[in-house]
């Protein structure tokens, strides 16, 4: 792996500073000069992020697919956009447990339970500050390297995930604003959209806010297209069953963790607009039986 020099690290920090400060053209200009002067892959990753922001998803995907195999600790959205058969998993080697967290599918609760299994304290929502502790795992490794492990994942119907993200993360926790210094807009895009605004502009939210993309990427991008590679896959109503399996596998008594669930939406699930049906088509085909 190529290590970045101090100058490259400082340059990358400056680029991000401009981007987060909503000085996109300055950020892009600085990045273009970095790409001319440095071969370090972190600048290609920033370029992929910027192309996504510009709405040029195909170009962003092309860059990521070229570099993802050698990139350090790629994020969920990068793996998904690159289209590689790799997910991110919490690996407990001591207990031979492998958990693939899918956002808005009970992952906060399970990751906290895994903390208990490791003999540590639960961390509530702060558990996601440790996302870098989840590691990239090739799906085919479940059949060889991890064939003896209990590999598991929780899945959920796409409209319920979307509504949970909007209601719990955007509205109740004000996350888009909090992540941007409390600003009401980020590059002109509201950080406090209504449900209708969010749904209608989901494609743009997924380009502007990486956190929105990570929370709304299809289940298939987190888990691949073959549920049979996992020891256990279940829907949200199977949560107690998963807790029982984790408890039995690890020999650890585990508590109820319902307090970590996102605030529940009060509205009925919406009809999925045609464009979103396309985004989540494979979720229904591959994981629909668990919803």
């Amino acid at each position, binding site marked *: 792996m190529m290590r970045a020099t101090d100058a490259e690290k400082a340059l990358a920090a400056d680029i991000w500073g401009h981007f987060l400060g909503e000085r996109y053209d300055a950020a892009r200009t600085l990045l273009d000069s970095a790409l001319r002067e440095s071969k370090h892959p972190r600048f290609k990753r920033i370029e992929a992020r910027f192309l996504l922001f*510009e709405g040029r998803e*195909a170009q962003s995907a092309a860059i990521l697919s070229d570099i993802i195999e050698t990139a350090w600790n790629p994020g969920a959205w990068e793996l998904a956009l690159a289209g590689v058969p790799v997910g991110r998993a919490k690996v407990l080697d001591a207990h031979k447990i492998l958990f693939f967290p899918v956002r808005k599918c009970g992952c906060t609760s399970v990751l906290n339970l895994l903390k208990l299994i490791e003999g540590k304290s639960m961390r509530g929502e702060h558990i996601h500050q440790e996302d870098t502790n989840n590691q990239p795992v090739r799906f085919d490794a479940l059949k060889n390297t991890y064939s003896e492990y209990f590999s598991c994942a929780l899945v959920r119907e796409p409209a319920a995930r979307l509504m949970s993200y909007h209601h719990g993360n955007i509205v109740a926790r004000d996350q888009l604003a909090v992540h941007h210094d409390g600003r009401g807009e980020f590059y002109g895009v509201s950080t406090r959209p209504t449900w209708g605004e969010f749904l209608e502009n989901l494609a743009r939210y997924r380009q502007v806010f990486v956190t929105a993309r990570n929370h709304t990427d299809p289940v298939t991008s987190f888990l691949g297209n073959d549920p049979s590679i996992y020891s256990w896959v279940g829907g949200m109503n199977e949560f107690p069953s998963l807790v029982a399996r984790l408890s039995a596998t690890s020999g650890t008594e585990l508590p109820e963790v319902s307090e970590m669930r996102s605030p529940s939406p009060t509205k009925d699930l919406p009809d999925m607009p045609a464009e979103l049906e396309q985004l989540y088509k494979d979720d229904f085909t591959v994981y629909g039986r668990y919803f």
Partner: protein
Amino acid sequence: MSELYNTEILRLTTQIPHTKRLENADVSAVKTSRICGSRITADACVRDGAITGFGQEVKACALGQASAAIVGEQVIGLTEAELTDIAARFRQMVKTGETDFPEKWQKLVLLAPVKDHPGRHGSVVLPFEVLEQMFADLKADSSAA
């Protein structure tokens, strides 16, 4: 503000009007930019030479989305003559940076900085191309009838 990705342009990306496709359109068209892959699919109802209903699906970059948002604001009531006039002024702006629009089309000036980015010209003219295609198809249909 002269930057390409200024806040006003980016705000428009979440304000695209007429995003519901029409079921009983008189004409539909699809245009794709060969340069960047941006695509707009649109339907229209036309009465007495003017657009009375419009629906569009915009799968484009941020600049293409912004352009579709501005054009979409003025699309109801649009005639072929007005479209031809505004499209010509817009292409002139994209090529030279020169801006000369009637008041109701002034927002197009926001896209003037694209002049220095030839790779992005294809996507910002896409909303005009799809409308031009529609009027051309209607004309072809009426002359064939």
